[in-house]
């Protein structure tokens, strides 16, 4: 590629890794959302503890649960495989899937999958550099790459790298189980604040990655903190536009506010970005406050959400739908009132120019 060198930034190894992990996540999201929602449907039909007595029943709910569980089993393999794919292209896929499946077998979970995918990626990149005679070039990608990569990376993971990761996962697991009310609130508040800080930017994605990882490993409480907190921001800013009225918000902003309510229901936070860009500090403070309180309460009250995405459409699948709606509205109102108060009134005789309108979606 005739790459144009940027004057200000250059692509570092860190950016390469980050893009690769993001690619893995983008392939994983439909799998984890699908699996979570399907399992939730099964639970709604056959009872919340259907997973515990699967062998004693033979109903439609069981069949649906079976689908959901199998889909969930693919979450970690898919992220591992597509991280490796993003780094090393096609030869990364097969060994990547194996590393993901291995992560499930040796209890290294989501973290194990990500690390495994990265290992495979670098190993294949290294293998590709080895010069071989023309005659055997053809068999490299179909025989040598998958066999050698899987053996080397797989055994390395099994005997060496996997050990500390599985200890780490066990430590996190027992740590989360043992958290008391107060520290659960703090963790939830941190998750909520990070989610609501930059609305789909790097900080939000970091928190979402952590929470989705826990979800893939079977911890469903942080997921509700993430989703409920994320849904408060567009609702809050939308409310603020109505509370603040004509004195504080422009015509186009109040027009956008209407779509913010719909976006809030869909858990699409990105609608807040135009507001965040124009008035970063005040928007961030209001959103983080509402998000942190909602997130903290979600964690403290032990609200579980099996689905990592879906907004209002998956509320019925949470362990306590009414509580979820309550916390969502609570956080939204806090953000809304706070921002309506913080926002500066428009200057006298303010005329809107074409430039001010940042359109969205």
């Amino acid at each position, binding site marked *: 590629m005739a790459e144009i060198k940027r004057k200000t930034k250059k692509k570092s190894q860190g950016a390469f890794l980050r*893009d*690769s992990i993001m690619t893995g996540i*983008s392939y994983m999201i439909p799998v984890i959302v699908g699996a979570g929602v399907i399992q939730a449907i099964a639970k709604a039909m056959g009872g919340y503890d259907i997973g515990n007595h699967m062998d004693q029943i033979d109903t439609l709910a069981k069949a649906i649960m079976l689908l959901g569980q199998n889909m969930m089993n693919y979450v970690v393999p898919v992220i591992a495989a597509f991280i490796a794919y993003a780094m090393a292209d096609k030869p990364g896929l097969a060994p990547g899937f194996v590393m993901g499946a291995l992560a499930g077998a040796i209890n290294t979970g989501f973290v194990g999958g990500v690390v495994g995918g990265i290992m495979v990626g670098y190993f294949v990149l290294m293998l590709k550099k080895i010069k071989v005679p023309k005659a055997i070039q053809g068999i490299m990608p179909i025989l040598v790459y998958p066999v050698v990569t899987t053996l080397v990376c797989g055994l390395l993971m099994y005997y060496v790298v996997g050990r500390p990761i599985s200890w780490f996962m066990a430590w996190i697991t027992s740590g989360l189980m043992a958290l008391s009310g107060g520290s659960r609130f703090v963790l939830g508040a941190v998750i909520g604040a990070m989610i609501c800080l930059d609305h789909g930017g790097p900080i939000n994605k970091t928190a979402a990655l952590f929470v989705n990882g826990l979800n893939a490993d079977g911890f469903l409480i942080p997921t509700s903190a993430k989703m409920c907190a994320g849904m408060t921001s567009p609702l809050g800013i939308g409310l603020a536009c109505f509370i603040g009225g004509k004195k504080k918000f422009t015509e186009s902003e109040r027009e956008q506010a209407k779509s913010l309510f719909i976006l809030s229901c869909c858990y699409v936070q*990105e609608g807040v970005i135009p507001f965040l860009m124009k008035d970063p500090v005040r928007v961030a403070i209001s959103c983080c406050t509402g998000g942190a309180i909602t997130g903290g309460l979600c964690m403290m009250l032990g609200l579980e959400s099996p689905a990592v995405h879906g907004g209002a459409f998956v509320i019925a699948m949470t362990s306590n739908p009414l509580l979820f709606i309550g916390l969502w509205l609570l956080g939204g109102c806090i953000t809304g009132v706070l921002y309506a108060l913080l926002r500066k009134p428009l200057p006298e005789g303010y005329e809107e120019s074409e430039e001010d309108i940042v359109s969205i979606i």
Partner: protein
Amino acid sequence: MYILGVTSCPVGIAHTYMAASNLEKTAKKKGLEIKIETQGAAGVENEITKEDLKRADGVIIASDVRIKNAERFDDLPTLTVGVSEAIKDAEGIIKELLEALE
């Protein structure tokens, strides 16, 4: 002047399309012809064709993930940026591409 672009983000439902529409709008304002391929959650949309590639002068890739079929642009001057940069500062990116092309 004919500019091609590809936008993509991890979730692929909002940033991808916001970046695409911002680039399109900015280019139109400057009187440039532009075509943006989006690689969102729905897969590839508004695909760049062979004819497009033949006519193109430069490429903008605004993405936080590894995009599909990047090798298409091997022979074209290509500017790679993050997807949020295209949402915030589409004008700056197009300007940077134009300067580099001169």
